[in-house]
């Protein structure tokens, strides 16, 4: 499912003395099955954009296309249930939204709310619990007896249980230890591929955007200012700085190496593995020449 934003502007508390404009003519497309990262400095409008993806917020001007649904500024949108089922949002610290007596009931809550039978919802919950890397034994436990990392996985299973076509992730790894961060990000990447999802990652982590995304949009002061593949976005360090963003550590290190070698490597590297291979290659070439 694709999402298109056309000239979207949004103001909080519109028409009151507290009106505050957060988005200004935001305009970009997220084609089906893309892994899209949205990056930007704190206060750049990332979180406001995110809430337009399933019509939690409606634009004060402009249009949002969510699959074949159209959300237009100023028009009441009726029956958004289908949109909310198809676009699942994993908010920051999603474990704060857990509330049921057992993990099983908590995961089943979403799909049953959307009219799925109890049997089907339970079957989904049982399948998802192992998919997110938890043992079956947690199903009958209270979600509040689990560790923070486990609670996060239960909350994610609850979003996946609605069988969304688009999954929106808002800083999904905040507060997790490095292993937990990698496990969760790898899990979403695998889901993205296996279930042919459209994945939207809103993040401060340039490293995650570099490693996982097909495409990156930069938000700055309420506008989308730049879009491209990670290799293109992270090539131009000066422009990133203008938007108060630091390139990933790998890219900064690559620049140091290039400075030392006196020439550029053949491409902008996005992972440590890639950079090590490129340096090795450059050294082999250097030796062959001398």
């Amino acid at each position: 499912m694709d999402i298109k934003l056309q000239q979207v502007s949004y103001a909080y508390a519109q028409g009151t003395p507290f009106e505050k404009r957060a988005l200004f003519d935001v305009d970009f497309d997220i084609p089906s099955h893309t892994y899209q990262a949205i990056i930007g400095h704190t206060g750049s409008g990332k979180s406001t954009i995110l809430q337009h993806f399933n019509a939690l917020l409606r634009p004060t001007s402009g249009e949002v296309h969510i699959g074949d649904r159209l959300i237009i500024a100023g028009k009441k949108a009726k029956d958004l249930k289908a949109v909310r089922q198809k676009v699942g949002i994993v908010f920051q610290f999603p474990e704060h939204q857990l509330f049921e007596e057992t993990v099983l009931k908590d995961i089943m809550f979403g799909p049953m709310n959307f009219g799925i039978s109890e049997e089907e919802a339970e079957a989904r919950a049982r399948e998802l619990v192992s998919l997110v890397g938890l043992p079956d034994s947690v199903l009958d436990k209270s979600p509040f007896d689990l560790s923070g990392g486990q609670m996060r996985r239960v909350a994610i299973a609850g979003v996946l249980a609605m069988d969304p076509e688009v999954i929106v992730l808002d800083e999904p790894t905040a507060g997790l230890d490095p292993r937990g961060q990698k496990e969760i990000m790898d899990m979403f990447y695998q889901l993205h591929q296996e279930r042919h999802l459209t994945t939207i990652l809103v993040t401060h982590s340039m490293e995650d955007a570099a490693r996982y995304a097909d495409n990156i949009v930069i938000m700055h002061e309420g506008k989308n200012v730049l879009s491209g593949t990670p290799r293109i976005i992270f090539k131009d360090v000066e422009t990133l700085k203008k938007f108060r963003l630091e390139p990933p550590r790998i890219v900064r290190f690559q620049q140091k190496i290039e400075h030392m070698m006196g020439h550029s490597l053949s491409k902008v590297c996005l992972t440590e593995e890639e950079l090590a291979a490129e340096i090795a290659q450059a050294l082999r070439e250097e030796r062959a020449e001398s």
Partner: protein
Amino acid sequence: MPEILSLNNVTFSYTPEIQNSRNAVENVSFAVDEGEWIAIVGHNGSGKSTIAKLMNGLLFPQQGDVRILREPLNEENLWESRSLMGMVFQNPDNQFVGATVQDDVAFALENNGIPFEEMVKRVHAALEQVKMSQFLDHEPHHLSGGQKQRVAIAGALALKPKLLILDEATSMLDPQGRAEVLQTVQTLRTETGLTVLSITHDLEEAMLADRVLFMNDGKKFAEGTPAEIFALGDKLVEFGLDLPFALKLSKLLQKEGVPLMGQHMTEEELVNDLWTSNFNK
């Protein structure tokens, strides 16, 4: 240097009534001396935050004791002991009470009955120390994450603590915010010799410390300088953490057959080695 705080063979379980239940903290001992920066690292659930709660008497151990300035912590000296420790928590939005930055920093002082004149002085001095003086009358919720945590640090400093405890204080911040807070702590240490204990799973943060305590499953797995701890290499990964960037890249380069003299903790060392081992011939 005099000892500020110590844990001595401390064991704690959240469910002591259940036999054979897992201890959140098991037989942990360590001491913090005045002027040190200690980092406690470990995976989620390794016991880091339980240790923080044991240090300020939110929890009491079932075995062993916690000593503050060599005195065992108990119900009687709890409040006095707490006033020696300033704490900054993970979520900057959960610790604001004041309507303005200066009200917020003054809050704990008011609670402690500090006279008005003295209070104003301390608020201004504390905000000066974290370079937030120009935000005296700002509303806290309009600040960036890094600025909020600096205000929270000022709130702790205003009480003139012996020890500043940072409990994952940078984990919710963006990279700039994190850098801002760590810079603030480093400056404070050089200027005032403040003792710091930071609980973190960010290894770059741990690298700034004088000494690192490495927790795994409630036990102290290792203790040493950052270099000693990072020399444990794959053990860090096995226990849920990661390798520092330069070390990870050193390993990958060696795997690719790039000649290096060793594995490195910092980018600078790695670049130098790459240069001398490969170019400077």
